[in-house]
């Protein structure tokens, strides 16, 4: 390898490290919301950044780096689900959160957030991941659509339905 090749390669590794420092929590969070397993979500996080490294040339717009990474994470997490089930996986069939992981409920803002987290956990898979991408991770509707591989109107509808289900679940707590 020439020095120039080495420099280019080092720059690519540095770029992946930079992406990891900025977005590892988001990637891990999205994977965890799909898989409900810390170990699996960590594996998906690793896979995501390794795959990102091999596809760095596709990332031309720095403003799109997070939706781009989350798209890789989303598909990597679905791969894990497929391996678990050994069948094709539809996002509508994302697993429910396992029982016995109740969220502490105390009467302050933090507790309201905790209540919200529990309600998010109870959403159907397709709505849950759309809401998490849009309102927790802050992606635009277009980026949610791109990440999930669906149309923008479908993404908007899922977010709207998720918000309404959550609002009803937290009725009396939100005002």
């Amino acid at each position, binding site marked *: 390898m020439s020095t120039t090749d080495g420099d280019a*390669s080092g720059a*690519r*590794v540095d770029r*992946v*490290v930079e992406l*990891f420092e900025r977005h*590892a*929590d*988001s990637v*891990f*969070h999205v994977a*965890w*919301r799909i898989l409900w397993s*810390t170990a699996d*979500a*960590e594996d998906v*996080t*690793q896979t995501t*950044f*390794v795959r990102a*490294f*091999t596809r760095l040339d596709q990332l031309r717009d720095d403003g799109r780096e997070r939706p781009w990474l989350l798209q890789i994470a989303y598909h990597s997490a679905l791969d894990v689900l497929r391996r678990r089930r050994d069948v094709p996986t539809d996002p509508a069939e994302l697993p429910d959160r396992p029982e016995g992981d109740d969220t502490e409920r105390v009467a302050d*803002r*933090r507790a*309201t*957030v905790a209540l*919200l*987290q529990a309600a*998010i956990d109870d959403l159907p898979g397709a709505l849950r991941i759309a*809401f998490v991408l849009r*309102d*927790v*991770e*802050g992606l635009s*509707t277009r980026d949610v659509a791109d990440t999930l591989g669906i149309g923008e109107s479908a993404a*908007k509808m899922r*977010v*709207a339905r998720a*918000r*309404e289900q*959550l*609002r009803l679940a*937290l*009725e009396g707590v*939100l*005002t």
Partner: protein
Amino acid sequence: MRCEDVFDNLTDLLDGALDRESEAAALEHLATCERCEITLAETRTLVELAGDERPTRLDPSARATLLDRIVGEVGRDS
């Protein structure tokens, strides 16, 4: 605009994605409809809370381990 129209456009209204005419019509309805106003306020609070705190973060030691593994893997492949 009626209650169901406001309801259908709630997400766009919150996201600032409604066209000017529809937004004006929605706001006009909201000024006189307490139920829709409460629904909008609750949904706005919900969205604010959702962005407030990401519940699941990487454990710091796991984070360091993962980064080491990733750098090891991509460094080997480059």
